[in-house]
Each structure stands twice: as structure tokens, then as C-alpha cells.
């Protein structure tokens, strides 16, 4: 017994050490970026948003799952999801915090970030996003506080229901507004579609639930908890339904472009469809992260097996990340005034022309390190928060299950 405990605690320490190391590397890379400017990233004038914005939008989406799981457990009384409520809210708070942190290395002038609050321009979707991200974080923090407070159960339940009722529309607003950062821009036909907000909401539910499934799977494997089969079925059902809706939205979007055959819109879509330069993203999004997990979850009834559900969840995250890369990179690579002679990339490299005919982007080691560090930051928040907030108390442990089984056996 003590050996097992020691093993668990040394594994826990190693995990924390790894996360701390990744964060340290990211911090060093950020210092480097501050010193040499955004020239140390792969972003240049034509494709001027890169993996930071991708990661930002991705973490915003991940934050959905937790809150939706917790809120729907409260509001709609889905008891199967109740054990996950505290873990869910914790994940939501961590993800939204990481998303906010991702913006800082993306800024050319991070020291001036206070201007967002001193001189906000309320026309800008980015200011709406700052407002909703802050509100969402506060909401999740309040939720956690109430959950962990020692107040009487009746009062607690009332407060939690109230927060959950605010939480669901807040989550919709968060994802819609993040979508509108892209979707309202007339300059990019690929972004400028009314479908983008619903698409973001459904892919947020999809990826957020997948994250909860992955974390639950990891806890079941390493943390000594055991969730009911019915909870797993609810999670995989939610994933399957939202994957189907997401693919339907994407198909509807593609069909609108294909049928209309408007050249400036077709250019973008052709880059993504099989045969285009970005078709890898299409396969990741449609097959690896879409159709395969959907079939596994629905047709093959794999939802009974935890390992298979977690695998599906990982595939889904790959797919949603691919969607996010596609949206940002392909959108930026297709400006309305095509990449004509004289497109200047904005920095001077001796021996190379500053004039480009196509926009180019590949993340540098600085970007990779910082993004990895941010992911580690999120994982650290969840890991530490899980212990500190006692999320485990709510989760059925292996021991408890065995006790129940014993009692049942005895009664029988």
C-alpha cells in the first residue's frame, strides 16, 4: 500500500516537474521574443496571425466543455454528469485563463495591454472578447468558490443553479464573440460567414467535452477514480451528436461556396479540398477528427470501453485544432487583393527578395516552445487545482465502488 502511494506521489512529482520544465522553456523563449520582437516568430505581413491565435481560439473552445457539463448537470438535472461538475468548472477556468495568457506573447507591445481597459473601442469584437473572457473567468471562479464553500447544501444548490443558468448563455456568448473576431471581417471571404458563430459554438461543445473525457480517462487510469458507465455514455453521446452537427455545418458551408462558384471564394476552398495545398487539414478535420470518431462512438458502440472513448476524444481534439489552423492560415493566405507582385513580407533578409507572390508561414521554435508552455500551464492549473479544490471528493473512487459492490453482494 505504501509502495503504491509512494509510486503515485513520485509519478505526480515527475508530472509537475515536466510541466514546470516546459513552462520554463516557454518563459525563456518569451524573453527571447521580447528582446528580438515578433521577427523571432514565423509571422510576416501577409500571414500576420499564426499559431498563437490558433491556440487562443482552441483554448477558448476547450473551456466550453467543463462549464457545459457542469451547467447542464445543474440546469437540466442530468445526474450522470454531476460527479464531473467540479472538475468541469476547474477545467473551464483553467482553459479560459490559458487562452487569455496566449494573447500576451502575440502582442507586439505586451507592455501596453492596459490600453485595452484604458481606451477600449466598443466597435471592436476584440474588446467584446476581452469583456466576455473576463466575465466567463469570474463566473467560473465564483462557481468554484460556491462549490467548495461550506455553506448548507440547500443554499449551495440554489446558488449553483443560478450560476449555471447564467453560465450556459455566457458560454454561447464567449464562443460566438470569439467567432465574430473572424466572422465579421469583410476582408476575408473565408471568415465572413454568418455560420461561423454557430460553428464555433458546436465545435466548442465538441472539443470541450472531448477534453473532459480525456482528463476523466487519465484520472481513471492514474488517479484511482472510477466513473459510472452511464457518465461515459453521456460524454460520448454528447461528442457524437456535436461531431455530427459540426460536420453538417461545415458541409453546408462548403456546399454554399461550391454551388455558388464565386471565384474569390472558390480559391480559398480549393486550397483545403483534396488536392489543395492545405488538404492535410481537410483529412484531419473530416476523417481523422470527424467521421472516424463519430462512427466509433455511434455505430460500433465503443462508448462502453473507456480507452476507446478517450482515443476518440483525442482524435476529435486533433480535428478541431486542424479546423482552427485552417480557419486562421487559409483565411490569411487569401487576401482580396491577391498576392500580386510587390507583396512585401515586411522584414529584410539579406540575399532574399522582400517581395513575395504568396504568403508564407511556418511557426518557429519560439512559437512552438511558448505554445507548449501554455499547454503545460493549463495542465498545471488543472492538476494542482484538482488536488487543492478537492474535486476528487465528488468523483466515485475505485474503493467506493468496490464497497458498493460488496454491499450489493452481501444484500443479494
Amino acid at each position: 500500500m505504501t509502495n503504491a502511494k509512494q509510486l503515485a506521489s513520485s509519478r505526480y512529482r515527475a508530472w509537475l516537474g515536466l510541466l514546470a520544465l516546459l513552462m520554463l522553456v516557454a518563459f525563456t523563449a518569451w524573453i527571447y521574443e521580447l528582446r528580438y520582437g515578433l521577427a523571432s516568430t514565423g509571422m510576416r505581413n501577409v500571414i500576420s496571425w499564426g499559431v498563437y491565435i490558433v491556440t487562443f481560439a482552441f483554448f477558448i473552445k476547450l473551456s466550453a466543455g467543463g462549464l457545459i457539463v457542469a451547467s447542464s448537470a445543474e440546469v437540466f438535472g442530468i445526474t450522470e454528469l454531476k460527479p464531473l461538475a467540479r472538475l468541469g468548472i476547474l477545467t473551464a477556468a483553467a482553459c479560459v485563463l490559458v487562452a487569455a495568457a496566449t494573447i500576451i506573447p502575440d502582442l507586439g507591445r505586451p507592455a501596453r495591454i492596459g490600453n485595452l481597459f484604458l481606451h477600449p473601442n466598443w466597435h471592436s469584437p476584440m474588446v467584446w472578447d476581452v469583456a466576455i473572457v473576463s466575465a466567463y473567468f469570474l463566473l467560473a471562479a465564483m462557481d468554484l468558490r460556491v462549490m467548495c464553500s461550506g455553506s448548507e447544501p440547500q443554499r449551495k444548490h440554489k446558488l449553483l443553479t443560478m450560476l449555471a443558468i447564467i453560465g450556459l448563455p455566457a458560454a454561447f456568448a464567449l464562443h460566438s464573440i470569439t467567432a465574430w473576431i473572424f466572422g465579421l471581417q469583410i476582408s476575408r471571404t473565408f471568415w465572413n460567414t454568418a455560420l461561423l458563430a454557430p460553428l464555433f459554438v458546436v465545435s466548442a461543445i465538441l472539443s470541450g467535452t472531448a477534453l473532459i473525457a480525456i482528463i476523466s480517462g487519465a484520472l481513471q487510469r492514474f488517479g484511482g477514480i472510477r466513473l459510472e458507465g452511464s457518465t461515459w455514455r453521456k460524454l460520448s453521446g454528447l461528442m457524437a451528436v456535436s461531431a455530427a452537427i459540426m460536420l453538417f455545418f461545415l458541409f453546408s458551408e462548403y456546399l454554399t461556396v461550391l454551388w455558388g462558384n464565386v471565384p474569390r471564394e472558390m480559391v480559398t476552398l480549393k486550397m483545403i479540398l483534396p488536392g489543395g495545398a492545405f488538404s492535410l487539414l481537410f483529412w484531419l478535420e473530416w476523417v481523422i477528427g470527424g467521421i472516424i470518431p463519430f462512427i466509433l462512438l455511434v455505430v460500433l458502440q465503443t462508448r462502453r470501453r473507456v480507452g476507446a472513448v478517450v482515443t476518440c476524444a483525442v482524435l476529435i481534439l486533433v480535428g478541431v485544432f486542424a479546423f482552427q489552423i485552417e480557419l486562421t492560415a487559409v483565411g490569411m493566405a487569401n487576401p482580396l487583393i491577391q498576392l500580386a507582385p510587390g507583396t512585401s513580407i515586411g522584414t529584410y533578409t539579406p540575399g532574399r527578395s522582400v517581395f513575395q507572390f504568396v504568403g508564407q508561414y511556418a511557426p518557429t521554435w519560439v512559437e512552438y516552445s511558448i505554445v507548449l508552455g501554455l499547454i503545460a500551464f493549463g495542465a498545471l492549473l488543472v492538476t494542482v487545482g484538482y488536488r487543492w479544490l478537492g474535486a476528487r471528493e465528488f468523483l466515485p473512487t475505485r474503493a467506493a465502488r468496490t464497497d458498493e459492490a460488496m454491499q450489493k453482494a452481501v444484500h443479494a
Partner: protein
Amino acid sequence: MSKRWGIAIDQNRCIGCWTCAVACKAINNQPLGTYWNRILTSRPNENAPTTAPATLAIDVPHGTFPDVQLAYQPTSCQHCQNAPCEKVCPVNATFRREDGAILVDFERCIGCRYCMAACPYGVRTFTWGEGQYAPEFAVGYGKDYRSAGRLVFTPQRPIGVAEKCTLCVERIDVGKQPMCVDACPAGARVFGDLNDPASAISVSIQQQGGRQLLSELGTDANVFYLPVSRPNKVRS
């Protein structure tokens, strides 16, 4: 009525010599690799292509031989009346003066590059790293310039800030013309007040069918292009 400054570019006169681009670089002391103004090519009377492929090298005609055509489209900030960049700037660093000039406050910009994503013309540039200069001293208008107290031009560019054509506000505020207009050897550029129906620019746009780039987006640009072939072409 207040002024509404604009530029009309006569594509029939433009010979694609890049003098306006070089003059712009010089007066504004732009670092290597930064162009606020550049010369794109298009078919006559059309926008530079909105669909790929644009031509594959500088100054290559559009079309398939022998049916080839070429017109030059000098492209810098269009100073839109309904500017997407101004609407998206989260901190009001990009602002529009009453006379129509869209400017960037170098001291307020946080470098989020949302304006670059929002600009339909792709004319904004960003100072990605420490600027390198061919002569290692400030050339051109070598002083800071403030409009209503806000720093809208500085010769040594601050890093991590979005920038673009300023319509040479430091020159037009003292009654001069923007540098690209003064420098054009072909006399292809007309600068003036679009609100004054008798000004040279208003008359030429009126008579020669001046058009705005991507006018279907409703940005209402203050830069107009006089087409290559037109009924009332002025011969001189």
C-alpha cells in the same frame, strides 16, 4: 464644409516606375522590407486580381499570349471613410481625422495586428523586428509629427506596432501635397479636396469615371483610380 482629402491615380498615365513607392520610402524613412506604397499590376480597368493566380513575377502582363494586357495599380492605404481597420482597433490607436486621413497612434498601438486581418487591401505593414536602414540615419521627414497630440509619425520606427501610409499629414497640414503626388514623374496623381466639386480631383473623377478599389465592400475609399480606357480621356 470640412475638407475630405483624396488622391486620384490616372492608370492611363502610370508607367509602373515605382517612383512614388521609392519617394514614400524615402520621405517616411521606412526600414528595409517595409513598403507603405507598392505597385501592383492588373488588367486595364479592373482591380488587381482577387483570385489566384496573380502574375508570377513583377511586371508580367495578365492573360494568355497573344491576348495579354497590363495596367499598373499603385496601392497604398485607401483612407476609407468606412474603414474596417478603424472599426476593429481594440484601443482606438487607428483613428480617422475629420479630413479623411486614417492614422495610427504609434504610442497607443498594442500590436495585435487585428487591423491587418481586417484591411481588405492588405496595405498595412508591421514592424516585426528592429528596423534596418540602408543609410543608417533618418532620411526624409526626420521629425516626430503629432496630430491632435497623438504621435502619428516618427522617423525611427517603434518595434511591434502596425503602420501604414499617413497621407503625409505633416505635409498636407502645411499646405503641401503628399510626397507620392509630388514625386510622380508621369503626373499620374492628383491630390485635392473631394468635398469641393470644383477641385481638380473632383472634376477628374467626375469626368473620367474614377472608381474605388473593391467599391462593392462599401469602404468608400478616398483614393480613386481613373481607368485606362474611358470615353472622356484627356489627351495632353
